[in-house]
């Protein structure tokens, strides 16, 4: 949701740049590449500064949709004569200044009637959002180092955002943002450390995105926004994380920490989990000892510290019970026993442990205790099944030894009998 106060500002930015859709003469029918003499000429030029845009335009979504070079640069895309094609009277301009880029793109992308003809499924509020973003606000003040549309989407070889080759495709956004946000010297002029992307690359989110190819895993724009990019404030961190981590947010809202964190202006999730370098949570974090997150506010003697210690004890006990049962079940499996039922019990124990761990967000000792009891019960069942399997293995081995002895005795008896007969 864009704050109402900034909407007039966005309108001003767009109006000041003479926002308008391209002249009809620069457009072809939607969905079909139009005649474009600019490309024919520019492809054959020796100077790469001039030929490269034409080559990049081959796969450009705009060109494929019927928007010619003149759609952005003005001029006449049907004229064979360069002078007529690049006629300033027809609005021709060469390189477009960064400050003019958002308005130029908005000429079409903020025009719902126009976009309906070419790409009806694309929203038309990008420019309005951009105007509210840190990038847009700085650009409005004349800072040309900030990102504009072309910084992220490219200028001449723009690909649809759902094309895996696009620089704004989920798995490539990190690299795109890193081009500026990885430059510490540039970032420090804005009071940003420049380590954010490097930190993010250490996170579970980046691992899910790149190792599991999970495109739903959050990357830069999922938390900061795309066109309206801005750091989430202290009060909105839990909303951002809660978009995916719904249960955790609901439990946190029930916890005494919610108000306490708000009163000291402590960001909710970030206080324990960090922001960009979000690591896989560990039970060892819970407690008031060195390096444990509860110790940031609590000491062992206060009520909260005591609860933290008990939470850790219950979770530790449950984890150890699962690990011990898992090891015993695995041993039985290695010995050739089918342990499907025990594996189901272990899965149940694991699920209950996940629910118990969730209760840490509510700091609800009683509920967590109840969940850990379920963990212990399921782990105990798995353990019993493993014990039964071990007994069965012993029975089989004993049976085998007895059978082998009987068989060998019979063989010896036969051999002796044959020998006595043939003597």
């Amino acid at each position: 949701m864009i704050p109402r106060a900034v909407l007039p500002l966005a309108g001003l930015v767009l109006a000041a740049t003479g926002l308008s859709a391209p002249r009809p003469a620069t457009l072809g029918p939607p969905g079909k590449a139009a005649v474009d003499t600019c490309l024919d000429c520019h492809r054959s030029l020796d100077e790469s500064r001039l030929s490269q845009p034409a080559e990049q335009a081959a796969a450009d979504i705009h060109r494929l949709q019927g928007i010619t070079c003149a759609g952005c640069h003005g001029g006449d895309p049907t004229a064979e004569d360069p002078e007529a094609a690049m006629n300033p009277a027809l609005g021709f301009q060469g390189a477009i200044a960064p400050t003019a880029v958002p308005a130029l793109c908005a000429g079409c992308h903020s025009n719902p009637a126009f976009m309906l003809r070419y790409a009806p499924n694309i929203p038309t509020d990008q420019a309005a959002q951009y105007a509210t973003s840190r990038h847009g606000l700085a650009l409005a003040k004349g800072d040309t180092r900030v990102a504009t549309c072309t910084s992220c989407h490219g200028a001449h070889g723009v690909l649809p955002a759902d094309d895996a080759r696009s620089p704004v495709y989920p798995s490539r956004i990190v690299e795109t943002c890193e081009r500026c946000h990885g430059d510490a010297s540039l970032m420090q002029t804005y009071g940003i450390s420049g380590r954010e992307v490097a930190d993010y690359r250490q996170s579970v989110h980046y691992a899910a995105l790149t190792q599991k190819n999970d495109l739903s895993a959050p990357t830069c724009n999922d938390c900061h926004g795309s066109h309206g990019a801005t750091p989430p404030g202290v009060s909105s961190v839990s909303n951002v994380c809660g978009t995916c981590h719904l249960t955790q947010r609901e439990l946190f809202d029930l916890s005494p920490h919610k108000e306490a964190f708000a009163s000291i202006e402590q960001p909710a999730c970030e206080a324990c989990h960090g922001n960009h370098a979000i690591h896989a949570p560990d039970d060892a974090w819970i407690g008031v000892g060195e390096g444990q997150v509860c110790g940031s506010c609590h000491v062992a003697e206060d009520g909260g510290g005591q609860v933290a210690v008990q939470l850790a004890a219950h979770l530790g006990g449950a984890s150890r019970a699962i690990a011990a049962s898992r090891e015993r079940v695995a041993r039985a499996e290695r010995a050739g026993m089918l342990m499907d039922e025990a594996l189901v019990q272990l899965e149940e124990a694991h699920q209950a442990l996940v629910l118990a761990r969730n209760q840490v967000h509510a700091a609800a000792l009683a509920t967590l205790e109840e969940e850990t009891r379920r963990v212990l019960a399921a782990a105990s069942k798995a353990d019993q099944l493993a014990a039964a399997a071990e007994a069965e293995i012993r029975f089989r081995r004993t049976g085998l030894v007895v059978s082998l002895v009987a068989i060998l005795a019979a063989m010896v008896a036969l051999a002796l009998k044959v020998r006595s007969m043939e003597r």
Partner: protein
Amino acid sequence: MRILERLWASLDERLGLAPLVEFARHKEVPRHRTSWAYYFGGLTLFFLGIQIVTGILLLLYYRPTAEAAFESVQFIVTRVPFGWLVRSIHSWSANLMILSAFVHMFSVYLLGAYAKPRELTWWSGFALLLLAMGFGFSGYLLPWNELSFFATRIGTDIAGKTPLVGPWLLRFLRGGDDVTGATLTRFFGFHVALLPMLTSGLLALHLLLIQKQGMHVPEGEAREAQRRPPIPFFPNFALREAAVWLGGLALLAVLAAFFPWELGVKADPFAPAPAGIKPEWYFLFMFETLKLLPPHVLGIEGELVGLALFTLGGLVWFLAPVLDRGSRRGVRSRLFLLLGWLALAYLVSFTVLSLAGVFP
């Protein structure tokens, strides 16, 4: 005892069993350096007996449908008392039976026992080995697990390459275009009805011929067999054979108890084929050869060339008593002996190398 004697007398009076007893009393087995080879036919028969008994026990619980086959085998190995043992013995015994049959066949071939007048015994034995491999191929699919499903798909694909009848054969084996529940039902029918029926008839003929013609004495062993007294079949040889069977049983018990046959995961026809799909070990030499052949040989599809070569090889092997003309007069051709050793070396080396994972 008197009751038994009276019962025997009564049966003999009606069925005329005395000549049979007389025959058994006088039946003898030659004694020489390669007498050990005589035990493998009996050992194969012993494993077949185990297969019949354990197969009948498995039938009590097995359900031959794509929906229930895997679960029923899972039930057998987890819930049915001694079900794990019965299933494991059935699987191991099947493999030992085929191994024993191969040893039996090669020893018969290399010792020249296929020669006149034993052509029919050789041919019926050859057909019995093919039937045993058919038992293995059809039985492999029955647990309906991932490995067996995809191995059957590959195996039937190869059968589908047969010239002229290939497409028909493929559909006949699969009961459709792909391996489905219809294939499972069909393979079950082959495994428990068609193949046992054919095997019973051929086995009866095979055993009858052996009794009729007596044991073959290899070319170089005739003098020793004449010099040494023969082994009376009853009870001496029967007791020796029983000791060998007990050895087979002991081996089976160790294998079944220490290496229970894995069930794997249920077949999912929509899942991609897992890596490393291989048929049963006794088909590996064919499988690896077909894989090694180039896509085209002299403009003909490589697999087709491979199949043609296997058919030709099988035909030469089958017709050895006819093609090896000298064998009729008791003089074996060196070429056929060499062919036998080469075939053995090829089979063993390809199987071992495939099991060792040498082939890509």
